[in-house]
Structure formats: C-alpha cells, structure tokens
C-alpha cells in the first residue's frame, strides 16, 4: 500500500510537474491554462454527470479488480511477478487518473451550476423587487384614483339655471357649441358646464349690482318720506290755527261746515261695524231718498280714549285671560286652604270679567225712519266690543189717534222688529263664539242680557258687515253690509208701514168698527153678519181653543205670532175666529181658525163646510199683493162675515132667509158650498 501511495504520489507530483512546466512560460502557460480550463469546461458540459458516474463506478470496479490481481500476484509470486505487478500498478494508476479527471470535471460542473444558480437567484431577486415595486405603485395609483374620484368641486353647490334655460337665455356665441345638447360627449358636457358656470357668474354679478342700486333707491325714498312727514307734521298746527281763526267767521256767516266737520270726526271714531253701517246707510239714504235720519250718539272723548286704548287692551286681555286660567288651576290645588279668602276676590274678578266682556262701545248710531203714515221708528245700534256683535234697541212714535192697547202693542219697538226675517228674534247671539264667552261669566245664553243691552238681530249684524255663518271672519266687511243694506232698509220701512196699517185696523176693530177696504178690492155687499167682539188673546188661549188642534199640529202657527179672537154674529148664530197674525204680515196672510155655533158647535175638526170656509178665508188671499197691508185683515174679516151668511143660509134656510146671491146650494160629492165671491153686478157666490 505504502508503495502504491508513494507511486501515486509520485505520479501526482509528475503531473504537477507537467503542469508546472507550462507555467514556466507565462504567456504561453496562461494561454494554455485558459485553453485547458475552457476545454475542460467544454468537456464538462459535453458529458453528462449521470454517464460519468457510471463510468466512475466501472473504473472503481476496474481498480478493485486490479487491486485483487496485485494481491494475487504478491501471494503467488509468479516469475514475472515484478513486471506484471508494475503493469498492473500502471494500469491502476491510469484508472485513478481517470477518476481524478472525472472528479475535476465534476467540480467544474458544480461550480458552473453554482454560478448558474447564483445568477438565477440574482435574477429572481431582482424580479421579486420589481414586482414589489409595481405592487406598491399600483396601490398608490389606486388610492390616487380613489382620491380623484372623491374630489368635489365647489361648482356643484352652485345653483345653476337649467340647461334649457341657459341655452335659451345666454348669448348665441356661448351656446353655439351645444346645439345638439342631449347628445354630447363628456368633454362637451364639461365645456357646457363651464359655460353655464360662467353665465351664472355674469348673471349674478349683474343682479348684485341691481340689488345694491335698488337698496340705494329705497334709502333715498325713505329719506324722502321722512322729510315729507316732517313737513306734514309742521303743517297740522298751522291748519289748526287757521281753523281756529276761521271759527268766528263761520259763526258770523252761519255756515254748517263746523257741524259736518264734527260729524266727520265722530264718524271716524266709530268702531268698524258701526262705521260700515253708517256709511252704507248714508249712501242708501242719498240714493233711495227714503226718509231716514242718521245720528251718532255718545261721548266723543271717551271714544277717542277707547280708540287709543284699543291696541293695549287687546294685549292686556290676553294677559289677564292667561292669568285667570293660571289662577284657576292654582286655586283648584289649594282650594281647601284659602276658600273663604278667595271667594270675595273671585266675585270681584267675575264682575270685572263680566264688565269687560259686555263692554259697549261709547259711540252708537241712531237710525230714524219716518214712514209716510206718520210713524217714526227709532233704532239705536250699539257695538259690543268684546262679543263682537251689534245690539239694537228700538222705539216707535206713532200718531196720536192710535190708542187701543192691542194696536199699540203691535207698534212697540221690539214687537215691530220681531222676525223682520223669518226666525230672527234677536234673542240668541248670532256669533257662535259668544256662547262660550258668556258661559265663562256664568251666563247660558244672550237672552238674559236683552233687556240691558238690546236685541241682536242677525240682520243688524249683516248690515254692519258682520257675518258669522259663512266663515269665522271677525273683521267687519263692507261688502257684506252693502249686500244687505238695501234689503234690510226696505224691509224695515215696509215693516213699519205694514205694522202701522195693521195697528190702524186693530184700533178700529177694538172699537168694533169694521175697517174700510178700498174700492178696488172686490167686497161682498149687504152682509148681515157683523163683528161683535174683537179681543187680543194669548198663545195659551189660542192653543186651548178646540178648533186649533189641527192647525197647531201642522206647525203653521207659532208662539211668536200675534193672536186675536173675533166674534161674528147673526141673530142667534155666532162664529168665533181665532186669528194668528204672523210677524211678516201681510206677506203671510193672517190665519183664521173658525169655530161656529148654530145648533151645535162646528169647526174644521167636525164639519167639512167650516173647513172649506176656513180654506176660502185663508187661501183665497194667497195671491194678494204686498200693498195689501192696509186692508188685508179687514178684507178677510168682511169675507168671513159674508161666508158665514152663506153658510147659515144653506144650513138652515128656514131660520136665515137667503140674502146673499148664490145659484147652487152645494155641488159635487163633497157637497161644496159656494164660498167664492164673484164681483159681477152686485156680486154673487159660486163654488168655483
């Protein structure tokens, strides 16, 4: 072994020597060296590592064989032992050299592959780095994009005129590129937006300028007004002095300027509703020439005070109301504690509240209507400021020859105005608010206040421009008044006339004189039955009469009517007529309800003929004109007398000889009596 190794080492050294040799010539040597290296490298890559390993294993096998042969040789020690040994050694060495060669090749290959790995790794690293860079860049960009997207421009907050308007209003030069407006691409849209913004800016500038100029103008005008006001206030004292100096002159000349001036002043102190009424009534007087007089009554100074305090009092009212409410609540809490103490003050407070609520305006309007019959109707209109209604008191002066009780009663102020329009008695406040206001001071309705304050007719509210049903307007309106004034005035005038004529008739009837009826009205002559008695009766009496039941059931008469009882006689027979005169006589004919006595009691409840007579008396006049006030009642009574004659003469012709002219006693299945008067010749009666 030692030998071998030494042999090996010697070989090696020889190789080294060989190698060293080329190094001896540096130029050639390096060249060779490089060449060798290049060659080896080439060789290394030509061959594959796998085939080399095979070869290596073969070589090792060969070496092993050689070693075994050497061992065999050494043991046997054949003759040519040394030579053979040498051969074998050489052979073995060559194999080892080959091995070495392969080792070298392998190393070369390894280095080269390492290098390749290193370069690859380097490449990989750089790619990785680049990738990271790009990733970062993309994240940055996306965040940038996001930021861009979130960007809000100020212009979005600006309110712009709509595109259509813009296209219409802006100068053509600016709108030209956007003619085909709805189909624009994005840039064009952007441009359009810019253009609109620009347009808006110019417009706004213009308007701001205008605004400031107007403001200046306003200031200027305000200054002017102030100046004029000052001048006017300076003028007033001067005028007063002029008027004062003029006074003696007026007095000397006897001019009425002063009076109308005073009236004018009073007029403007009137509360709105009364002022409206005054103005409209005055106008009515001028136009229609009905004989009416208008006056304003009351203390002027108080009115001034009232007008001044009006605004303040409104506020105070609110305050006190709220205060009262609060107090009430408090009181309920400590009611036990301080009951006695509070009671007295509460009464005072109630009284005060009552006074406040029922406050009457210091001025009132007096309306005097002079009717040609000589009656004078005086009405006074008061304004209840808190209740916001008009109250009316009235009085009638009638001519001296009306003396009878019943006749006078018809003409009493409140009677004459009763139901000027259907259902309007003036007892309940037409202002729906009042009910609650009155409840607050412990009154159930307005009715109890009538004697002290006056009647609250709804026509009175209307002529003063107050209308409650239509709406909750609390302001007086002139148009409302204007709409009603002529109707109401005419109604008042007509009512006064008709009442006077009714009174005249009643006056005569009370003296058992049948009032005369004008020639133009057809009247039966030669009537035998005559009026025996005329009395005024009460609603109670009227209801108690046997004959009135059906009429009462039909609700055609009501307690507000006027009731009378007339007795008509012819020898032993008599007929009682219960008469209900409605308030708007003669528009509604007086209603007669008959009760005849002749061999028994007859009325519309047991006798068709009496019923028919009633019909004739009540219905036949339904077409009578409105001018019949002076004679309608009398005419009805006269006809009743005539009909009673006819009735008696047919009922018992033996007792009552025929005096009236009629041809057929009765006709038809209802045995109808001739209760229709025809004025032909002296006149006669027929059925139809």
């Amino acid at each position, binding site marked *: 072994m030692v030998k071998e190794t030494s042999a090996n080492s010697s070989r090696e050294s020889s190789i080294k020597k060989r190698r060293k040799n080329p190094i001896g010539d540096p130029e050639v040597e390096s060249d060779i060296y490089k060449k060798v290296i290049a060659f080896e490298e080439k060789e290394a890559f030509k061959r594959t590592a796998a085939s080399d390993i095979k070869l290596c294993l073969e070589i090792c096998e060969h070496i092993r064989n050689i070693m075994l042969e050497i061992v065999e040789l050494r043991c046997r020690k054949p003759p040519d032992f040394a030579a053979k040994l040498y051969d074998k050694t050489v052979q073995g060495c060559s194999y080892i050299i080959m091995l070495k060669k392969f080792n070298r090749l392998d190393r070369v290959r390894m280095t080269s592959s390492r290098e390749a790995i290193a370069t690859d790794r380097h490449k990989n690293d750089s790619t990785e780095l680049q990738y990271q860079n790009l990733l970062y860049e993309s994240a940055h960009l996306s965040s940038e994009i996001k930021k861009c997207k979130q960007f809000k421009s100020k212009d979005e907050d600006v309110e712009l005129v709509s595109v259509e308007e813009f296209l219409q209003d802006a100068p053509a030069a600016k709108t030209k590129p956007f003619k085909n407006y709805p189909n624009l691409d994005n840039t064009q849209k952007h441009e359009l937006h810019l253009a609109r913004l620009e347009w808006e800016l110019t417009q706004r500038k213009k308007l701001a300028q205008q605004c400031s100029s107007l403001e200046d103008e306003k200031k200027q005008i305000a200054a002017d007004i102030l100046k004029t006001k000052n001048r006017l206030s300076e003028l007033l004292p001067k005028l007063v002095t002029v008027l004062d100096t003029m006074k003696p002159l007026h007095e000397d000349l006897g001019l009425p300027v002063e009076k109308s001036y005073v009236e004018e002043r009073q007029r403007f102190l009137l509360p709105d509703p009364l002022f409206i009424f005054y103005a409209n009534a005055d106008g009515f007087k001028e136009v229609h020439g009905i004989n009416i007089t208008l006056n304003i009554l009351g203390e002027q100074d108080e009115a001034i005070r009232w007008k001044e305090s009006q605004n303040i009092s409104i506020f105070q009212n609110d305050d006190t109301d709220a205060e009262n409410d609060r107090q009430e609540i408090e009181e309920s809490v400590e009611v036990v504690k301080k009951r006695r103490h509070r009671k007295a003050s509460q009464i005072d407070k109630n009284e005060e509240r009552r006074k406040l609520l029922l406050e009457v305006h210091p001025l009132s309007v007096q309306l005097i209507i002079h009717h040609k019959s000589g009656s004078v109707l005086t009405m006074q209109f008061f304004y209840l400021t808190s209740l916001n209604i008009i109250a009316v008191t009235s009085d009638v002066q009638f001519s001296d020859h009306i003396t009878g009780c019943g006749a006078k009663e018809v003409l009493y102020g409140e009677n004459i105005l009763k139901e000027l329009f259907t259902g309007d008695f003036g007892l309940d406040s037409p202002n729906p608010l009042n009910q609650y206001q009155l409840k607050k001071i412990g009154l159930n309705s307005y009715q109890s206040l009538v004697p002290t304050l006056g009647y609250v007719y709804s026509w009175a509210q209307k002529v003063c421009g107050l209308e409650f049903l239509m709406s909750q307007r609390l302001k007086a309106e002139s148009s409302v008044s204007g709409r009603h004034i002529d*109707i109401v005035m005419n109604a008042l005038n007509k009512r006064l006339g008709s009442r006077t004529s009714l009174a005249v008739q009643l006056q005569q009837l009370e003296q058992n004189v049948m009032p005369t009826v004008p020639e133009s009205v057809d009247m039966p002559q030669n009537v035998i039955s005559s009026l025996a008695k005329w009395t005024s009766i009460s609603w109670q009496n009227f209801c108690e009469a046997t004959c009135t039941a059906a*009429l009462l059931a039909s609700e*055609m008469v009501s307690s507000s009517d006027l009731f009378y009882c007339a007795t008509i006689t012819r020898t032993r027979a008599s007929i009682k007529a219960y008469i209900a005169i409605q308030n708007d006589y003669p528009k509604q004919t007086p209603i007669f309800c008959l009760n005849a006595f002749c061999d028994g009691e007859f009325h519309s409840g047991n006798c068709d003929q009496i019923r028919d007579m009633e019909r004739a008396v009540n219905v036949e006049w339904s077409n009578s004109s409105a001018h019949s006030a002076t004679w309608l009642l009398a005419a009805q009574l006269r006809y009743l007398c005539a009909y009673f004659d006819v009735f008696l003469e047919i009922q018992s012709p033996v007792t009552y000889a025929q005096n009236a002219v009629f041809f057929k006693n009765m006709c038809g299945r209802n045995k109808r009596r001739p209760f229709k008067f025809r004025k032909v010749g002296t006149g006669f009666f027929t059925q139809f």
Partner: protein
Amino acid sequence: MNYEVHQKFLYLTSLSASCLQFKMLIKSFYNSILNLTFTPCGNYLVSGDIYGQITVFNLYRLMNPDLNGPNLDTKPHNSFTVQEDVQINSILATESFLIVGVVGEIFGYTWKVVKNSKDGKVAWKIELPYSEVLSKPDVNCMVAKDGLLYAGCGDNKIYVINLEGGHIIRTLVEHSDYIHSIFNAGDELASGGEDGVVNIWDIRDKEVTFKIEPYKNDGIARNNLGKWIGAVSISDDWLLCGGGPKLSLWHFRCMSPATIFPINDQGIHYAEIVGDKLLAGGRANHFYNMAFNGDVVSQIPTSSLTVFTAAHQENPYRAMCMAGSSPKIDICSNFNYRDQVLTLE
C-alpha cells in the same frame, strides 16, 4: 262682483221662497181629495183633489221602500194640474186612458202622460151641454161599460157617451137633484143623488127598472143629515146605499132593507160591495169593513175628517187607499189597519 249679485239673488229668493212655501203649505193644509184610482197595471195610485191637481204615486215604491236610500218613496211620482182651482169631481181608469171629470168637461189623458208628463197634455175632451156658464154641470161620478161612458152629473142627468167619438148618445133623466154616485154591475146601473132616490137602470133599454127612496124608511132616515144618497153599489142580488140616511143593504128582488148598519157616521160618501165584504166610509172617524149581516170586520182610523173616496186592488199589490177632506191618503195593505199615510204637497 258676479258672486255678490248671485248671493243677493239667493238671499232675496230665499225670502220670497219661504213666503211662497208658507202659502203653499196653508193651501195644501186645506186640500181635499175626492178621487182615488189605480192604473190598469196596478203599479201606480192616482188621486184628484179640489185644487184641480192630479197626483200619481208609485205603489211599487210604497210597498217596497228603499231602506237605504233617501226616503223619497212617499213623494209623488208625478203631478199635473187639469184646471187651476177647479175641483176634480171624478176620475176613472180605463185600459188606455185616465178619464177626468171636472166641471162641464171630461178630459182624457193617456197613461204615458199621466205617469211621466208634468204639463199634462190632454188626449181628448168632451164638453157637456149647459145653459149658461155658471151652471156647468159637475161630473160627479163615472163608470165605463162596453165602450160607453156613463157620467152622473150636477145637472141631475146621467150622460151616456160613446168613447169612440166622444158623442153623447143618450141622456138618462130621472133624478130631481144632482147625482152623487153611480155603479154598474152586469146590465144594471145604479144611481144615487142628492134627491135621496136610488134608481136602478137597465142599460139595454135605458129605463128605470126599480126605484127606492131610503129616506122614506123610518129606520134608515136621519132627518138632521138630509135625504141625499152619497154612495150606491150593487152586486147580483144586493144593493148597498147610504148618505144622509143610514148605510143600508137592500135585497134586489123584494126591494126591502135587509141590513141597516149600526155604524157611527154623519153621512156616507163611499160604499162598495167587494165580494163578500162591504166597505164604507164618510163623515166618521173610521173606515168600515163589514160583513153582509152588519158585523164590523175591521174599522180603520182615518186621517181625513170625511172619507170621500177609496180604491182597492188585489194584484199586483194588495192595497186599499182612502182619502177625503185632508191632503192625506191612508194606505192599508191588509184591509185591517193603516200602514202608511201619504201627503199631497
């Protein structure tokens, strides 16, 4: 401005309207209905009043009231005026016409007009002879038989009129005062008048076959009420009559009173034999439904002071209607008590 004018107009009209309304109300309060009849179809009730107005009610609506809708069922279906303020004395329903007798004239109306027309166009008109304007005869009662119209009139005569041409072909004169009622059954015609006589005519030879005078019978006469006969009705064997004298049933052949009815009345204006029942009404508080022997089957309180007329039918609605001296019509569907009351406006 227009609004104001309008408001003013409304205000004025409401004033005059309330006044007018009141006048209409009082006029209607004193109305009397002298006639009632049903249309041939039985769906409508027709009335005639003293103001000359024909009023038509829808019976179907009355019998089947619409409970959900507004209560318009008792409102008249139609109404028109024949002659203003001239009372309608009689009406008669024939197949094609409503015949209305007033004073001196008889009018015919087609049913279409009666049911639907407000102006009441007259289809034909018959004028009765009269000597002077004021004595125009009232047409108090009418019956129709075989194309002939028998009209009992205020001039004591019964006119026989040919409905084809409208000519008076015969005049039956026997009564001495005006005729209240005529009734036809078979070939016989009964007539009753103010003179207290009931005549039975044979309509073939136009002669009076029988004549009775109830006021001459002591058990029947009521002197305080007079002798007038307000209503007659006949069947094959029986004759029912009443008026001033008490309501009485007479046997046809022996002509003697079989039953004198004990009802409390002050004059009979309506009486009729309906099958085995007798209906009667007049100046009494009730309308009577009686049997032949005088038993009162039912008595119906009336809204009217005096019942002047009644109408009854079985089909299509069983109904009996009564009216008289009031604007009200009582309706009963079972002949026993009053169901509904209609009012003329």
